[in-house]
């Protein structure tokens, strides 16, 4: 096991990881930008080093500075959290070169799995269904032929794209030509790369993902699913486990397939398989996240398994001490992301409490929310034996939560939690007015 870990992140996830380390008896090194010198993660860690200016590129994305600090401070491993360097194979390789353990998959896996085409090829071989689609199409004619085979509606997506930008929907054959040239133009102007590919358009759909833990010794376990259909412009707002759209039998089936797939691709670490779930109950594989997710906490509340600790243990070569049969999917857990509406300074914080209420945050009185980083202030997570009770608990907790001095989306979350579509469980990706 490691005796000292550097946390290459900030905000609530840095706090979360530092706390996990303390509970494991592992010393912690925080790094921070000039904008974060008064931040909670800096105060909580055993050692803290300022590594650069407020811009992430100067600090939290500054690979050399972070590795150099880890070496100087005597850390053996680096936890990247989520975002920033967490999916950066170059950084993982640099860690290894400097004798540091990157807490995540090895750089070769990262490269292999970050190439969508390779990943889909790999997954197709495991028994999971991949969304039908093409590689880059060279002409409108080729797009038309492919669409014929896949079946309308289809989507044209930029190969170099991301974040939902530059996507065109094609409902029938006569729309192909115009859409193709518009998509190419947009792809060039947005990403400097005009190649586009075709994919089956699954609608209406829910975003359902499966949490995986896999160790070096060939053990892999699936910790259930999460429904993340509540998004605005591809940003998740609220997540729950288990998904109200998936019945126990379906869940058991897809979990088994997922474990099998992860074993086949020899993945090691914490990971997430993301699917689109259609009305007929088919799971269409979209992509794999090879890091901790923001919403990992709902899975922790449901299963009682600490994902951060297991990430660290797996990186240290420790085998999982539980197996699939130990995972009980009982009750219901919901997370509401509490985001800042704009910058501000925290004047007062009141956090709801009681059994199975958790608020993961970096807020302390005086915390300044600066424009440099994302708007996530904290995550309110509650668990209860039934979804109905969990909903009431979330409502009560949202009502009790007070964040004074920073505009937040608490009111919006309350409206979502009280929305009939949400309470009935009958919602999909269109909930927030998305396509």
């Amino acid at each position, binding site marked *: 096991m490691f005796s000292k870990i550097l946390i290459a992140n900030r905000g609530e996830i840095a706090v979360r990881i530092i706390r996990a380390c303390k509970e494991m008896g592992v010393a912690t090194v925080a790094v921070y930008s000039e904008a974060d*010198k*008064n931040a909670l993660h*800096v105060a909580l860690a055993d050692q*803290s*080093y*300022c590594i650069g200016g407020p811009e992430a590129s100067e600090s939290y994305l500054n690979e050399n500075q972070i590795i150099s600090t880890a070496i100087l401070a005597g850390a053996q491993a680096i936890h990247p959290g989520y975002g920033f360097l967490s999916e950066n194979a170059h950084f993982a390789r640099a860690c290894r070169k400097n004798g540091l353990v990157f807490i995540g998959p090895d750089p070769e896996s990262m490269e292999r799995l970050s190439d969508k085409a390779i990943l889909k090829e790999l997954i197709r071989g495991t028994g999971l269904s991949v969304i039908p689609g093409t590689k880059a199409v060279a002409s409108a004619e080729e797009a038309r032929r492919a669409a014929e085979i896949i079946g309308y509606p289809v989507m044209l997506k930029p190969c170099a794209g991301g974040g939902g930008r530059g996507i065109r929907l094609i409902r029938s054959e006569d729309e192909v030509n115009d859409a193709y040239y518009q998509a190419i133009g947009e792809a060039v102007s947005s990403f400097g790369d005009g190649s586009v590919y075709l994919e089956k358009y699954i609608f209406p759909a829910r975003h359902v993902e499966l949490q995986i833990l896999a160790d070096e010794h060939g053990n892999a376990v699936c910790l259930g699913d999460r429904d993340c259909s509540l998004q605005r412009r591809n940003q998740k707002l609220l997540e729950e486990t288990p998904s109200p759209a998936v019945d126990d039998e379906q869940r058991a089936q897809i979990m088994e397939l997922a474990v099998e797939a992860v074993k086949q691709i020899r993945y090691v670490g914490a990971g997430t398989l993301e699917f689109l779930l259609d009305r007929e109950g088919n799971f269409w594989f979209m992509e794999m996240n090879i890091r901790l997710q923001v919403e990992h906490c709902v899975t922790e509340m449901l299963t009682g398994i600490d994902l951060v600790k297991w990430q660290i243990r797996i990186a240290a070569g420790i085998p999982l001490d539980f197996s699939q049969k130990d995972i009980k999917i009982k009750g219901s857990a919901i997370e509401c992301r509490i985001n800042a509406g704009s910058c501000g300074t925290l004047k007062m914080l009141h956090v709801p409490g009681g059994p199975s209420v958790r608020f993961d945050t970096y807020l302390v009185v005086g915390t300044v929310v600066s424009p440099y980083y994302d708007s996530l202030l904290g995550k309110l997570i509650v668990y209860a034996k039934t979804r109905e009770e969990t909903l009431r608990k979330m409502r009560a907790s949202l009502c009790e939560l007070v964040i004074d001095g920073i505009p937040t989306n608490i009111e919006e979350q309350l409206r979502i939690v009280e929305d009939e579509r949400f309470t009935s469980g009958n919602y999909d990706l269109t909930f927030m007015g998305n396509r």
Partner: protein
Amino acid sequence: MKETDIRKYAELMKELGLTGLEITEENSKIRLERSVSVPAKETVYSVPESVGDTQTASEPKDYISVKSPLVGVFYAAPAENADPYVSIGDRVAKGQTLCIVEAMKLMNEITAEVDGVISEICVTNGQIVEYGTELFHIKR
């Protein structure tokens, strides 16, 4: 009443932790009051010492600070038994090497940004410095 006197008295009150001071001398009298109650901001979660002094930024300075641009180990001299690059009182020219900050086996030379005289060396040989740690004061 002279401003300098008021300043002097106020400083004294602060130093001695007084909340009131009244002085009657011949035909003049002065009374000063301050509240000691720590302002709310100071009860904030304590900032680790490594963060450095934030106040210096707002005070007027008669020198130029040379700060470390990276995390590393500060070396005052090019080799173990060599003389230090600079000492207090040395006149330095813009571009002149002042010290080395080593990170990942790389020796990063830190150079003077202005001509001047070294008035203070803020760190000691072999010390770990962070981004922004003050290394030298240079008086123009």
